């Protein structure tokens, strides 16, 4: 974000940036430009919890506040962010840039009706599906580079990634790499369960990344086994993630130190969607408290969104909610969320 110089706030930001870089995948972690945009990823594990709704409207609100935002549709399974934003089915998609490489990064970026917000639309699902995990790490390299450079090349303050449902490899990769990962939950057990699964997956991805950066694969494996990952041969034990990881310190001091440092450069934000009562709002506060102590992730409750017809009405009109209903309660809530987000990121 800000080059390593000066004291006070600059120093703090430089340190946070260092912590952020420490948890990136090694092929991305090299060659980071000084001036990266703030990466915000919206995920949440379960489908239909409003990830695309939140990202599209949040982007518009951030744009309204004067930040330049790049929205990227990374939902490999069902890309439809363009519909939320109020655009026709796009011709140029992320796919043309990442897989075909027929278009340049600038060419796949499209303006949206909202001010200061640009969009990279996702490709058609059948196009993504043939492309397996074989060269997964390599595939996204170009995209990573372009996104992290987009502040220098296009002047974006925020890169907002709309992730798909599930814990697909790419999805978790992008979530673990973000400065702020927003988790959208509905106040119902299935959604909460998936949110925790997703968080666990992203912690193990950070463990992987740190392990790869330090080339301490044994340590990474031990950590994952400790956390009960069946892949690494562990079984589920009681106790929180942070306690278990701290317990490994005597064996792998270097690794655990880097891991906690990497986690300190990342934040989690919770958004509770479709709330109907005060008790639903309380879930957000509870999740914040629980995740702070359980995962050692800094987590924040960013805000809630009421259950409201306006959401699907605007979708039926194929227009963006915050511009279709600028005075609705929902719009106010999104505005609050964007304010909290900026606050927690330290803008």
């Amino acid at each position, binding site marked *: 974000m800000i080059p390593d110089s000066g004291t006070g706030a600059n120093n703090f930001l430089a340190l946070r940036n260092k912590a952020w870089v420490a948890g990136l995948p090694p092929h991305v972690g090299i060659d980071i430009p000084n001036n990266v945009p703030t990466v915000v990823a919206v995920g949440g594990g379960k489908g239909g919890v409003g990830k695309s709704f939140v990202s599209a409207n949040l982007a518009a609100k951030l744009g309204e506040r004067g930040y330049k935002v790049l929205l990227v549709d990374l939902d490999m399974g069902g890309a439809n962010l363009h519909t939320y934003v109020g655009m026709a089915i796009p011709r140029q998609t992320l796919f043309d840039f990442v897989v075909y490489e027929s278009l340049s990064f600038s060419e796949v970026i499209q303006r949206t009706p909202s001010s200061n917000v640009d969009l990279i639309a996702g490709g058609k699902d059948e196009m993504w599906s043939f492309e397996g995990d074989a060269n997964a790490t390599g595939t996204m390299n170009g995209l990573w580079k372009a996104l992290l450079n987009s502040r220098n090349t296009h002047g974006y303050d925020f890169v907002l990634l709309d992730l798909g449902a599930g814990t697909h490899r790419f999805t978790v990769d992008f979530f673990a790499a973000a400065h702020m990962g927003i988790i959208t939950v509905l106040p119902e*057990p299935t959604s909460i369960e998936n949110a925790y699964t997703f968080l666990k997956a992203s912690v193990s991805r950070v463990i992987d990344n740190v392990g790869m950066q330090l080339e301490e694969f044994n340590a990474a494996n031990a950590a994952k086994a400790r956390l009960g990952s069946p892949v690494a041969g562990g079984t589920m034990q*009681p*106790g929180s993630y942070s306690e278990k990881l*701290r*317990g490994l*310190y005597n064996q792998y001091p270097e690794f655990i130190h880097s891991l*906690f440092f990497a986690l*300190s450069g990342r934040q989690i934000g919770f958004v509770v969607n479709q709330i109907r009562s005060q008790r639903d709002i309380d879930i957000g506060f509870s999740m914040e408290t629980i995740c702070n*102590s359980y995962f050692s992730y800094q987590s924040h409750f960013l805000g809630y969104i009421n259950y409201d017809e306006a959401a699907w009405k605007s979708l039926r009109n194929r227009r963006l909610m915050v511009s279709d209903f600028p005075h609705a309660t929902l719009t106010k809530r999104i505005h609050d969320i964007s304010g909290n987000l900026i606050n927690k990121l330290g803008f």
Partner: protein
Amino acid sequence: MDSTELLDEGPAGIRDRLDRPRPTSHYQLLGVDRLANSIEIRQAYFRLKSVYISGNQALYSLINEDELAAMVGRIEYAFAVLQNPSSRQAYDRELGFSVENPPLKRADARHISEAAEQLPSLPMQQVPAGQGGTSKSAGLVSKNVESNEQAERAAQPSVAAAKMAPLRSVAINASRDDVRSKVDGLVIGTTKVDGLLFRSLREAVGVSEEEMHLNTKVSLRFIQSLENDRIDEMPAGTYAKGFVKSYLKYLGINEPRELIESYFQRGKSCNRPATL
């Protein structure tokens, strides 16, 4: 919470801390500052209690019933230790945070805490989960109390104990003759009835804001706005009068009527909001 703490100190600081891995301290568990006052601690405790409650949706799939019970036990124990001033002091000493009277003023406190951080720390006592609070913390106290002064301190009724004890309607000191004459002198010698008078009355009897709050059930905020003459923050007429009445009764003033009348008369003449 942990991660922000780590971040503040930079990589070298993290190394130092991790070199001596310790279990989560009571302060970390409750998510409060080491210098937090008893009100902050109580607030944090109630917040956690409302989170770690059986049937909370947000716990689903992450924390099972056994872990929940263990967690609640730890929270209760941490609260019991930190809520009692003497056991808290003993605990602070165990953590290597050996300031005799943790000051409440933030600016000073920060200064001292920095000095305290540099002292070598002692290994922390392992906290048994699910222990009943009070008996255990009493043991903690008696083990660590060495000097007479501390023993005296421990003998004083603590806030936690005061919470359990039946409410008093009049302060202990209020019946002492010297206190009585001091109070009477203050009341008779006064020219105008204001917050300052109330505060000096309270201090003359030797009652803390907290003790007042616990025994009269008048909120701390009200006591503070009364003593600072923030009349517009007080509740509407009758309620405010009732609170002032129990406030004065607790200080042993049996005929508070005149004082109350003139206090609120003054509020009226100041052209305050119509609620008074």
